[in-house]
């Protein structure tokens, strides 16, 4: 069957091509997918998932960063200079356009309906956990609690009460500085989560101003226990995607109408019985149908 059976111009891209582009992006711009504090920037082999064979040789040859540097993690309630090291990695990103065959979906998302695509990603997080001895070394020494008890005239506390804080000094405390000294750790403690999401494209707006919008069908984080926590995290991510991310992924189809030299109009083929979806998500491909008008 001709590719241009229902339109003047046709373009399609297979999910393998998209996944290969993402793979090249991961290999050549690893700092977009790997985040970490100073220890991981300096020694990327300490990441949860070492990248030795997963980055392009030119990244190191041209001195490009492997890990995007993040600030040290602040320890709540501790105002000292030390902060904890951590890393976050996004891996195994892939798209699977109907019919499903590029990656295995968890049972909760099966079957993948027509005109749908799924995204898969693995998020790995690692925390540089300091040794107990080191923690004891850097733990701040604060004034001990000195209770002053009033137990009557016959019972007294011979030791002197430590000087009280001058009330006038209150409010003069400097805000805690962000940590600038990393705690020493051996290997990070890591965990990975597999995340799957199913999306589809939907036409919105009026017939005069159609808008192509991305819609979330479902989302699943695999093997998080207890179930309540899994449901809570999934609910949170869904909320973030629906309220924060997807409203920004809307395309006015009018923006895809081009006028060349004021004589030739290039525009998406209108949806009809012969072209029920444009773009169409089928046969493992994204297909785009375009018409010309003189």
């Amino acid at each position, binding site marked *: 069957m*001709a*590719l*241009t059976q229902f*339109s*003047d*111009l*046709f*373009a*399609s*891209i*297979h999910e*393998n*091509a998209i996944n*290969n*582009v993402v793979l*090249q*992006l991961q290999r*050549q*711009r690893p700092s977009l997918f790997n985040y970490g504090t100073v220890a991981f920037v300096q020694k990327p082999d300490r990441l949860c998932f070492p990248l030795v064979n997963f980055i*392009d*040789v*030119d*990244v190191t*040859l*041209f*001195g*490009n960063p492997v890990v995007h540097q993040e600030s040290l993690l602040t320890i709540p309630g501790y105002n000292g200079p030390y902060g904890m090291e951590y890393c976050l990695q996004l891996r195994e990103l892939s798209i699977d356009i109907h019919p499903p065959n590029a990656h295995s979906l968890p049972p909760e998302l099966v079957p993948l309906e027509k005109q749908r695509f799924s995204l898969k990603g693995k998020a790995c997080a690692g925390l540089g956990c300091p040794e107990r001895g080191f923690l004891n070394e850097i733990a701040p020494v604060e004034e001990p609690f000195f209770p002053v008890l009033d137990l009557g005239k016959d019972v007294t506390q011979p030791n002197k009460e430590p000087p009280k804080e001058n009330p006038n000094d209150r409010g003069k405390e400097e805000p805690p500085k962000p940590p600038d000294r990393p705690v020493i750790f051996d290997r990070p403690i890591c965990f990975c989560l597999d995340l799957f999401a199913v999306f589809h494209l939907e036409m919105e707006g009026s017939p005069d101003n159609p808008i192509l919008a991305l819609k979330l069908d479902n989302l699943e984080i695999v093997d998080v226990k207890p179930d309540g926590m899994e449901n809570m995290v999934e609910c949170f991510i869904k909320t973030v995607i629906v309220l924060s991310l997807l409203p920004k992924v809307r395309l006015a189809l009018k923006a895809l109408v081009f006028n*060349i*030299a*004021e*004589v*030739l109009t290039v525009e998406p083929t209108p949806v009809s019985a012969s072209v029920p979806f444009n773009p169409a998500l089928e046969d493992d491909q994204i297909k785009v149908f375009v018409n*010309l*008008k*003189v």
Partner: protein
Amino acid sequence: MPTLNIAANEKAFNDIIMAAAKKLENTPPLTGSGVLGPFSASYELGFRITDGSIDLTNAGTVHIRELDITYDPMILRLGIDLPHIQIGGECILRLFGKCRIRLPRIDIFGDNPDIVVPINLSGLITSEFSGEFSVSTGKQVLLAKGTRTVHQAHFDADNSNEIRDRFRTIIGTIPLLPATTVNSIADTFVPMVKDNLADKWQFFLRDVWHDLDIIDIASTAENILRHLVDFIIDQILAPIPAVLRTIAHAILDPIISVIGAVLDIGDDVFEWLSSFFQTSFGLLDIIAQLILNFIGAMVPFLQLETPFPIIEDSSGLIPVLVPVENIAVTVDDVEFVVSADIL
């Protein structure tokens, strides 16, 4: 199955021709003038695509069918500036040392130019082009790339003489061509191809056959006849009621079209033979085809780097290069498809 496909059907090609025709209609004509001593000439030349279509063929070619370009306006004005001749102006009454009455002074040939001969051929002359073209692809891999990585090859300019030497070898196959000419022709084409050391997919155009009629006899005769008939009916027979004139047009227009078609039979036969034998006829067309194909085999009309930079370098980061392989162009009688694999 290729992972990337871009296709255009026959209608898309014909829409592009129609759009070009529309654009030409709205383009102001070319004008110019020149003076040589007392002689001067000026011209006004516009182009209109009046006929033509594109067929895609199962032979894998794009067939441009009888693309007619009519010159409208096409006006040549020849002028001559004659030497000025002044008559009169003499004083016939002089009083108190001053001329009180003079004869009128006439400046013959005072204009410039004095005589203008307009030659108006607007809408009469038509050129016609027919031909079949194919597109082939090839991958250029330079030995000079050596063991460079893909990013090094992307950044490093090609300072080798590899392309120049290859061109010199190809051009050197033309018999009787002096070495200096071979070298200078090669040097002309090298900058059109030479770039960095990255591998390149190149698209070459091949002229399978073509037939260029600078003056297409059939169309030009048809134009002249049509103009003549229009002049007779609309100007000379203007007093006749409009209805009768419309009927006359309705009767004569198809007859003129038939005359044009009959006159075009010879050309059509040659084009059919060209298409059948896949070769040009006519000495000039054969020479032009040889030259076009000779250049076309060396100089691609489009070349794409592979791996292809999808994100250029910014703030010191290397560009993201994506390998594109197996680029192919396939043409059948329905559509023209460019396909590739993104690896």
